[in-house]
C-alpha cells in the first residue's frame, strides 16, 4: 500500500462522483451530516414532549393512515390477518434529530382489539403542522388480505430457478413458447420491448417472432390511447398488472402478477430502456424517424443475456430500486491505494476508471467534472458481467451511459484481473485501446504490488456485514467491524436471547443507504433468511416499503413501522440516510427502534470500510 499514505481522502478524488442531486445545497448537506441523528422510543420517556420540536407531526386519524394503505391497496390489499395479542397501547415511535430543528413522532395502533391486526403501518408526514406529544390512536382498518408478497410461492414456475443468484445463468430460456403456450401464460413476470409499429424487439420469455401478434396487440393498445392524446400508464386485470412505458418510438411493457408496486415496475422498465441505450444509444430514434418500419433486433443481436440478467437483478439487487451503488468492504488504506492508481490514469485522459468486484465497487474515479450516476454503474456492471466474452480477453467496446449522455457512445476498455474483479476504463476516443491497455498494465501492477487484489479476494470470502456482529452497545462501537481483519466470533449480544435467531433484538437484515454518497450497504443474509425464496420475499417487501416511503401521492414519509406475519419492517429516512430493517415478526418495537439506532451508529463507525469516501468533493 505504498501509495496510500501521501494521498488524503479528499485529494485523491477531486471531482468524481456526484453526491445526491436532490439535496439542494451543499452546505446544508454538510450541516446535516454533522448532526447526530437517532431514533428514539418514547416509551422510555412517557409523556415527555420531545426536545426542541418545531415540527412534530402525528398521524392520528384513521383517514390519514388508511390513506396510505389505500394508495397501495391494489397491491397490499390482501395481507393476511393474524390475531396478534395486543401490545401496550399508545407506544410511540419517536425518531428525532437531537438538537436539530426536526422532531417528529408517530403513534402506532391503540389497543383497540377490534381494529388490531398484525399489519401495522405507521407513517408520518414531514410537513403537516401539529403539536408534539402523544398522538391519538389509529387503527389499520385494512380489511383485505393479500397474497402479495407470498407470490414467491410454490406455483412459481419461472423464477424459482432464477432466484438463487449463485446458480442463475443468464440467457434466454423457453424460446419454444409463445402466447398460446400455457406455460408462457403462467409466467409471473413478462417484459416486452417493441417498436411503435408493433414489431417485437425483445421478450423475456418465448420467441419474439412467434409473439409478433401479441406484440401487435400491445402496440394497438398503446397507440390507441396515444391517438386520443392520452397515455396509458398501467392496466390492472385481475391480479395482473400491465405497465407501459413509452420512450419515443420504443415501447416497453411489463406484465406481472408479482404484486410489486407500479412505481417499482416502471422503474424496472426505465432500467431496461437504459440497458438498451447503453448498447445502442438513443440515436436509434433517428432510424425510426426516417423509417417507421425499422427493425432494431439485428442491432441487439447477441444481447439476450444482458437483458435477462438485468431482469433477474430486479429480484435480488437493491441497487435497482435504491438508485445507489454498493462497495466491497475493504480496509480504508486498501481502497485508498486502489483509488490513487485509478486517479493516476484518470489524469491521463481516461474519463472514468472503475474497479469492481462482481456488482460491488472497489474504487472509482472520474476525470474533470464528470460524475457517474448509480444507474449507469448498475447497467454497465450488468453489461460486463452478463457478457461472457469480456471474461476471456481484454475488450474494447462502444457503450453509452444513458444518464451521462444518452445520445453518444463512450468506449469501454474491459479487463478481468481475476475471476471476480474487473477494471473498466471509459474514454471518448475510439482509438485509445493501446493507451488504455497500458493504463491497465500499470494499474494491475500497482494493485498486485500493494496487495489490493488479495485483499479483495479476502473480502469476498469474508462476506459483508452480519447482523449478529452488530456491536452490543454503542459505547463499544468505536471499533472496526469485527470481521474486517479481526476475530469475527464475538459473543452474541444479550438482546439475542429475546428472539433466539438472527441478530440482536430479532434483527434479520438491514439496508442502509447514504443519500449524499449515493451508496448503500446491506447486511448479508443469514438465518432465518436462508432460502432464495425468503430472500426474494424480503427483497420485495423492501421494494414495496421503498415505494410507499417515496410515493408522490402519499409520501414522502420519514418513518414507517410495519408488522405482518412474515416480519417486522422498519424504515427510517432522514436527510442523510435511509435505513430499511427487517426483524422477527414478534420483535419488540421499542427494542427494534433501539437496534436501528445501533445499526446506524455501527454503519457510521465503519463507514470508511464499507463506503467509498472522498469520491465526492463534498464528503469527508
Amino acid at each position, binding site marked *: 500500500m505504498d501509495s496510500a499514505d501521501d494521498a488524503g481522502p479528499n485529494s485523491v478524488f477531486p*471531482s468524481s462522483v*456526484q453526491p445526491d*442531486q*436532490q439535496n439542494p445545497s451543499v452546505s446544508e448537506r454538510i450541516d446535516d451530516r454533522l448532526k447526530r441523528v437517532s431514533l428514539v422510543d418514547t416509551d422510555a420517556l412517557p409523556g415527555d414532549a420531545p426536545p426542541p420540536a418545531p415540527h412534530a407531526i402525528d398521524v392520528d386519524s384513521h383517514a390519514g393512515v388508511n390513506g396510505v394503505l389505500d394508495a397501495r391497496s391494489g397491491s397490499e390489499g390482501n395481507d393476511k390477518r393474524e390475531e396478534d395479542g395486543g401490545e401496550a397501547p399508545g407506544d410511540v415511535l419517536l425518531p428525532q434529530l437531537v438538537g436539530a430543528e426536526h422532531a417528529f413522532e408517530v403513534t402506532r395502533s391503540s389497543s383497540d382489539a377490534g381494529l388490531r391486526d398484525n399489519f401495522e403501518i405507521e407513517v408520518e408526514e414531514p410537513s403537516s403542522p401539529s403539536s408534539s406529544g402523544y398522538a391519538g390512536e389509529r387503527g389499520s382498518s385494512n380489511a383485505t388480505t393479500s397474497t402479495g408478497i407470498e407470490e414467491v410461492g410454490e406455483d412459481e414456475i419461472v423464477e424459482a430457478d432464477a432466484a438463487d443468484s449463485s446458480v442463475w445463468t443468464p440467457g434466454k430460456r423457453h424460446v419454444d413458447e409463445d402466447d398460446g403456450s400455457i406455460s408462457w401464460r403462467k409466467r409471473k413476470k413478462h417484459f416486452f420491448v417493441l*417498436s*411503435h*409499429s*408493433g*414489431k*417485437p424487439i*425483445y421478450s423475456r420469455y418465448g420467441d419474439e*417472432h*412467434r409473439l*409478433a*401478434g401479441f*406484440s*401487435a*396487440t400491445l*402496440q*394497438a393498445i398503446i*397507440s*390507441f390511447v*396515444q*391517438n386520443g392524446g392520452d397515455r396509458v400508464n398501467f392496466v390492472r386485470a385481475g391480479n395482473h398488472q400491465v405497465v407501459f412505458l413509452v420512450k419515443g418510438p420504443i415501447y416497453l411493457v411489463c406484465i406481472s402478477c408479482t404484486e410489486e408496486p407500479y412505481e417499482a415496475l416502471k422503474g424496472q422498465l426505465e432500467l431496461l430502456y437504459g440497458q438498451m441505450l447503453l448498447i*445502442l*444509444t438513443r*440515436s*436509434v430514434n433517428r432510424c425510426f424517424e*426516417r*423509417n*417507421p*418500419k*425499422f*427493425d432494431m*433486433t*439485428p*442491432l*441487439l*443481436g*447477441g444481447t*439476450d443475456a444482458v437483458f435477462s440478467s438485468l431482469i433477474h437483478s430486479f429480484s435480488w439487487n437493491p441497487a435497482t430500486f435504491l438508485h445507489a451503488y454498493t462497495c466491497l468492504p475493504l480496509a480504508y488504506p486498501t481502497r485508498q491505494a486502489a483509488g490513487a492508481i485509478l486517479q493516476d490514469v484518470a489524469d491521463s485522459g481516461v*474519463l472514468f476508471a472503475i474497479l469492481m468486484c462482481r456488482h460491488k465497487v472497489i474504487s472509482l474515479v472520474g476525470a474533470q*467534472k*464528470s*460524475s457517474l*450516476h448509480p444507474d449507469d454503474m448498475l447497467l454497465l456492471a450488468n453489461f460486463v458481467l452478463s457478457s461472457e466474452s469480456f471474461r476471456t480477453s481484454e475488450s474494447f467496446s*462502444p457503450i*453509452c451511459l*444513458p*444518464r*451521462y*449522455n*444518452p*445520445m*453518444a*457512445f*463512450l468506449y469501454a476498455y474491459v479487463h478481468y484481473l481475476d475471476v471476480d474483479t474487473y477494471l473498466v476504463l471509459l474514454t*471518448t476516443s*475510439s482509438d485509445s485501446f493501446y493507451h488504455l491497455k497500458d493504463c491497465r498494465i500499470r494499474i494491475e501492477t500497482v494493485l498486485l504490488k500493494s496487495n489490493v487484489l488479495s485483499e479483495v479476494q479476502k473480502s469476498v470470502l469474508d462476506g459483508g456485514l452480519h447482523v449478529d456482529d452488530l456491536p452490543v452497545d454503542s459505547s463499544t462501537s468505536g471499533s472496526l467491524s469485527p470481521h474486517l481483519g479481526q476475530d469475527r466470533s464475538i459473543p452474541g449480544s444479550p438482546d439475542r436471547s429475546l428472539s433466539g435467531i438472527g441478530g440482536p433484538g430479532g434483527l434479520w437484515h438491514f439496508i442502509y443507504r447514504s443519500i449524499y454518497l449515493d451508496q448503500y450497504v446491506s447486511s448479508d443474509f443469514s438465518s432465518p433468511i436462508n432460502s432464495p425464496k425468503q430472500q426474494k420475499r424480503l427483497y420485495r417487501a423492501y421494494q414495496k416499503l421503498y415505494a410507499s416511503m417515496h410515493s408522490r401521492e402519499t409520501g414522502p414519509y420519514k418513518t414507517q413501522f410495519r408488522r405482518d406475519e412474515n416480519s417486522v419492517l422498519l424504515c427510517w429516512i432522514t436527510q442523510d440516510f435511509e435505513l430499511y430493517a427487517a426483524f422477527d415478526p414478534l420483535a419488540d418495537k421499542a427494542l427494534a427502534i433501539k437496534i436501528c439506532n445501533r445499526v446506524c451508529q455501527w454503519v457510521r463507525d465503519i463507514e470508511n470500510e464499507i463506503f467509498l469516501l472522498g469520491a465526492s468533493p*463534498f464528503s469527508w
Partner: protein
Amino acid sequence: MPARRRTLLKVIILGDSGVGKTSLMNQYVNKKFSNQYKATIGADFLTKEVQFEDRLFTLQIWDTAGQERFQSLGVAFYRGADCCVLVYDVNVMKSFDNLNNWREEFLIQASPSDPENFPFVVLGNKVDIDGGNSRVVSEKKARAWCASKGNIPYFETSAKEGLNVEEAFQCIAKNALKSGEEEEIYLPDTIDVGSSSQQRPSSSGCEC
C-alpha cells in the same frame, strides 16, 4: 434475437366489412374456413412464418375491422407497415369502388416514405359464390384499376375454397420484403468531452 437474421414483416389487411378479410387470413394461417360471419372488432393479429428463397421470415398480419367506426384507429395501426393488402368482394360493386378510398386513407395515415412505390396487393375475394354467376366486378375492370395505381399485383381468391390464398400471400411477402430491403444506417455519435456542448439530461443533475 438469434444469430441468424430473421425478418418480420407487418402486413395490414384493409377493405369494406364483410368482404372476407378475416376469412382469408384464417384460411392462410389456420387453413380453416367458417361460413359464419363474425365482425372483427378493432383488429385481429396473427403470425405466420414463411419460407421464401431460403430465407425465413415472419408475417405479422393485422386484420382490421372494415366498419367505418374503427377507422379512427388508422394511424395507430398503419404505422410501419411493410405491405398493405386491399380486399374487395367481386360480388359487391361498392366494395370495389371503395378500394380507392382505402388506399388513399392508408397512404395518408401511414405516410410511408415513398408512397408511389409502397407495396399494395389487391385481392378480389369470394369468386366461388354461385359459381361466379353473381359477380359484378369483372377481372378486367379490377386489373385495369390495379394497373392505373402503379401495377398493383392482383389475385382472385376464394377464402372458402382456399383458391389462390397461398399464392396471394406469397406475393404479399415478396413485395413486403422488397420494400424492406433498403437498410437504415445507424450511426451514433461519440462524445466530445473537449467541447462544452455536451448534452446532459436534467435527471443526472450534474452541476458540480
